[in-house]
């Protein structure tokens, strides 16, 4: 177990390293970095000074070394637009994103567990059919569109909830629901079908024959088995949420997290800030991946972590 985690951590480090390499290569070698990083109307002196500042007058390996040293110290340089330490800005915005992801994914998890299990208990019934059709529809709709429709209905027409920004709990509702939407669609399908598979297993019959109540049979015996595939998928959804949906959902709702930050960095061509965001997200992805494996092992004794 310990050796396994060490190995996974090493693999994670490799991933983070490769991500920084890819970011370095794309931002410094594809095209002229100064063109990319500096505003169009910069003067020649400004350009030269900027090149020196970034160390672009050095050789590529030397640049790469400096870059790596910076990364190890979490020092990505100053944001080009905000003129502050890039990592500092990102870390400042991180809690908002974590709050949104926790709310959205928490909602998604609870709702899809309930809907999926209920659907599986009466397969083919009206609730089941509704759940299947509903989740297929939900997972077919792009988040940003769903978000805008929600804004239109709940903020514009009904004037019930704020459409953007961060404040009290009411600001969290629409973004969290938007983030949960497609995830619920995908997860309901998986929860439902795994529960159906498990309920058809002989051990469920055994549990009933032992005299256990239906609730205990489903809630403990079948549920534990269902949780193996479901938690795997949920881990994936968490990664997708952090490394993808946040950018879209936070942009729609102007939610001041790292996703919105990334969007603004793209619009402003603030690549240093963008690098910092990507680096942090990469670390999150690696950590979540390792956590999934550990949880997996804790649930299913048949899985050997080798």
């Amino acid at each position, binding site marked *: 177990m310990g050796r396994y985690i060490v190995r996974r951590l090493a693999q994670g480090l490799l991933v983070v390293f490769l991500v920084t390499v890819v970011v370095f290569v794309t931002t410094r070698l594809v095209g002229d970095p100064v063109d990319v990083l500096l505003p169009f109307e910069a003067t020649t002196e400004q350009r030269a000074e900027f090149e020196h500042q970034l160390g672009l007058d050095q050789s590529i390996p030397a640049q790469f070394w400096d870059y790596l040293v910076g990364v190890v110290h979490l020092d990505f340089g100053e944001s080009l637009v905000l003129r502050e330490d890039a990592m500092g800005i990102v870390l400042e915005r991180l809690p908002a994103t974590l709050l949104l992801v926790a709310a959205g994914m928490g909602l998604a998890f609870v709702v899809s567990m309930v809907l999926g299990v209920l659907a599986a208990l009466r397969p083919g019934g009206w609730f089941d059919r509704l759940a299947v059709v509903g989740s297929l529809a939900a997972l077919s709709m*792009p988040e940003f569109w769903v978000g805008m*429709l929600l804004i239109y209905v709940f903020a514009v027409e009904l004037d019930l909830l704020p459409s953007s920004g961060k404040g009290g709990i009411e600001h969290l509702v629409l973004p969290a629901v938007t983030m949960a939407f497609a995830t619920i669609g995908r997860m309901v399908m998986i929860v439902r079908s795994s529960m159906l598979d498990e309920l058809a297993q002989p051990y469920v019959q055994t549990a009933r024959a032992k005299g256990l109540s239906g609730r205990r049979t489903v809630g403990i015996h079948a549920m534990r088995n269902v949780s193996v595939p479901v938690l795997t998928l949920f881990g994936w959804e968490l990664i997708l949420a952090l490394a993808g949906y946040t950018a879209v959902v936070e942009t729609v709702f102007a939610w001041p997290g790292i996703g919105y930050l990334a969007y603004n960095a793209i619009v402003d061509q603030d690549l240093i800030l963008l690098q910092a965001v990507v680096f942090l997200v990469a670390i999150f992805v690696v950590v979540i991946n390792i956590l999934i494996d550990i949880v997996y092992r804790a649930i299913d004794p048949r899985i050997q972590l080798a």
Partner: protein
Amino acid sequence: MASNARSAALEAAREEELLRGRPYAVMRALRSTVTELWSDKAGMFGVFVMLVMLVIAIFAPLIAPYGPDEQSLFDRLQSPSADHLLGTDQLGRDVLSRVIYGSRVSLQVGLAVVALAGTFGVLMGLVAGYRGGRTSSFIMRWVDTQVAFPGLLLALVILSVVHPSLKAIIIVLALNGWMVYARITRGIVLSTRERPYVEAAELAGCKSRRVIFRHILPNLASPLLTLAVLEFARMVIAEAALSFLGLGTQPPAVSWGLMIAEGRDYLASAWWVITFPGVALSLTVLGANLFASWMRITADPLQRERRFARATTDPSAVAR
């Protein structure tokens, strides 16, 4: 009983097939697939939607009532009417026409990414599964590592540097999406290789090319096709998301994601500008998902039997 008549008919068909040979067999397989599809309404709907989208994309200039860039500043943000069935946007362009033209980018990106990522991924998977050893572990390490990447964010970084074009979008999305194909292909190749009939073919001295194409590929066909359709759906959404963030299709070109992004500022006064491209997008993706779930069932012999058993007693299916 009806099924007796059916099995007699099947018997006759089989004999006829022997007499007429292969092309007839292919025709018959095709026909039975179509009948099977017909009996599954959701799957049928999926195929129908996808076909309609394909036709619309190909014949866009013939179908669209206006050009996609025809501006008319007098007609800004008109609600749906007889002149403009789905209304007009902030520049007075016809939303219907733009939705019709927008299908082109979505389908192009979806198909191209699936073709590119699929080809590369399947090749890698085949090599990894068939070669084994160092090559295999190298490829699978690569896949594992790339899967652990924050793919979408990297795509954003790359696109924000290279300046998005259709080609760039396709390549970036394909770079992000080939790993699934490789994993599935390798998995199936590994499990099929252990089947007795493949071992028998190898022992009988079949060349490895023949083993791959005759004995292993047929097992891959249906899961890969299902995966391709699902990935198509995913890529259509991904392109829309990129365009929404301003890193996909660039104006003057039209894409659904871009239309939604552009309509964002007018959300309060003109709901139709974002609603209809979103509906087109969702319908396309839903169609693909429905088709894929139909195919997944069809690819599984046991499930297929169950569905058939149900269809035979379903009065609506008998009535055909």
